[in-house]
């Protein structure tokens, strides 16, 4: 059970890192995530079905996510649509796109295809206990993504992205086009979300258009748990670690809710309510802790 929680927490943790980038670093509440997560899953499944290499398929999923984010950013930048609405627009359009990618079906299984996860499991059977293979694998994947992000946010471009989320005027005064920065940032964020969706599809064994429903709430809740539990810091390494840890905590809570919820007559459909309540409780707790506005803590 414990390894299941960790695996799930780490898979979705990549999505949480994406949400962390848009909500916290860019200060751009991006709802595209609800569409780009199943987009990643759908692209992964279709690529695998067409016989593509798993890692190449992952790249395709990432590119698809980036594109979705870029569309949101372009709508926001050039049509002067508020960022929330721009995200909702893309997310809504992606629902249709995802069904198209899945070949006009809402759910496509990949039980027989050779996924990255299956390859990894085959390779390491006997080396480490079977139930820990995926745990170790996802630990490595999540850490690699985290370290790459940390490095990125220490470059000049990464720092400028952080500055834009904090003070857009400053970035403009430096002769940098904030529209370009938003496009890069939101694209990157959604690319990560799509990667997370691609791994989720392999883990679950199918892609479903409904996979992304409410995922943004899960992501935000995870980010907030991470911020609530951990030290306050401006070091990007600490912040991304908090996001991952928050994700594991959040999915632990969800896991418990799914498996032991029946004790209090809870059904899986109640989970969304629980997620929302969790966020509200966190908001109240954060305010009680006097940790300033939770919607504006960036890098």
């Amino acid at each position, binding site marked *: 059970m414990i390894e299941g929680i960790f695996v799930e927490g780490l898979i979705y943790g990549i999505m949480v890192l994406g949400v962390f980038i848009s909500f916290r670093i860019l200060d751009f509440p991006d709802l595209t995530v609800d569409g780009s997560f199943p987009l990643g899953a759908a692209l992964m499944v279709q690529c695998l079905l067409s016989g593509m290499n798993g890692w190449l398929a992952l790249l395709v999923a990432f590119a698809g996510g980036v594109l979705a984010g870029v569309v949101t950013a372009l709508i926001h930048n050039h049509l002067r649509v508020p960022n929330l609405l721009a995200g909702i627009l893309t997310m809504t359009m992606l629902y249709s796109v995802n069904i198209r990618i899945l070949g006009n079906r809402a759910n496509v299984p990949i039980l027989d295809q050779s996924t990255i996860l299956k390859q990894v499991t085959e390779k390491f059977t006997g080396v480490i206990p079977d139930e820990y293979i995926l745990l170790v694998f996802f630990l490595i994947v999540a850490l690699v993504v985290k370290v790459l992000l940390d490095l990125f946010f220490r470059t*000049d*471009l990464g720092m400028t992205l952080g500055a834009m989320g904090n*003070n857009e005027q*400053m970035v403009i*005064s430096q002769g940098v086009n904030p529209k370009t920065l938003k496009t890069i940032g939101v694209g990157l964020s959604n690319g990560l979300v799509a990667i997370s969706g691609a791994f989720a599809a392999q883990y679950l064994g199918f892609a479903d258009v409904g996979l992304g429903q409410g995922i943004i709430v899960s992501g935000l809740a995870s980010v907030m748990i991470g911020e609530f539990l951990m030290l306050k810091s*401006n070091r990007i390494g600490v912040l991304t670690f908090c996001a991952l840890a928050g994700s594991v905590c959040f999915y632990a809570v969800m896991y418990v809710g799914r498996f032991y919820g029946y004790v209090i007559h809870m059904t899986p459909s109640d989970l969304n309510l629980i997620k929302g309540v969790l966020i509200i409780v966190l908001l109240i707790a954060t305010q009680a802790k006097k940790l300033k506005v939770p919607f504006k803590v960036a890098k």
Partner: protein
Amino acid sequence: MIELKNVSIVFGQGTVNENKALNNINLKVKEGDFITIIGSNGAGKSTLFNTIAGTYLPSEGQIFANDKNVTRDPEYKRAKYIGRIFQNPLLGTAGNMSLEDNMTITHKKGMKWLRRSLNNKTREIFKQELVQLRMGLEHRMKENLVMFSGGQRQALTLLMMVLSKPALILLDEHTAALDPKNAEIVLELTNKFISEYNLTGMMITHNMTHAIEFGNRLLMMDGGEIIFDIEGEAKKALTVEKLIQKFHELRHKTFENDRTLLAED
């Protein structure tokens, strides 16, 4: 350097609230000029800056930078040669980032890419530059700017702007939100930087004494127009009394109300 030709700005055109914030402004800022601008609230001083910087698109007229028409250039493009400091000391820096990160972003204008230019060598350069402020900030490189006072942040913004070597600087009452002591420090630094780096610039102030002391040219604005433009020797001979009298002459308005807005010292 910068030239405005027949520039007008109308807010809410065609509505009952139509307001001509700038009315047919013609202005030429020469290289090496330092212009102080005075005028009561609503005279159009900040609108003038916003128009030069590119925040507002003029309703009519053209703006030239080094004889190149930049009327339609967005703000971020003009920011490459225009340095600007706002009244709000928080606008020039990112509060939740460290001092060294802020300096990394600001020490060079233009789009940033995947390079990492913050290293021990640049840190050393930043430290030496910070010494000029004489605020001891060079020992606080890793601290977040939210920990700094408004005066320190404004001084820092000023330093970072000067170091990026803009062709024109716009100071929009940059000491107005600071306490008297900090305002004095920042103003002293401004004075020092202007002469040391031979800056071309414009400064809005509500303080007539400063307007007379600083720079080689003075503009008085009212109702969206430049009503008085004086430079060189004639400006040196100005006094606060003469300025008030001039305003009275030009506008046939009593300056009494404005006396409260235009501080004398």
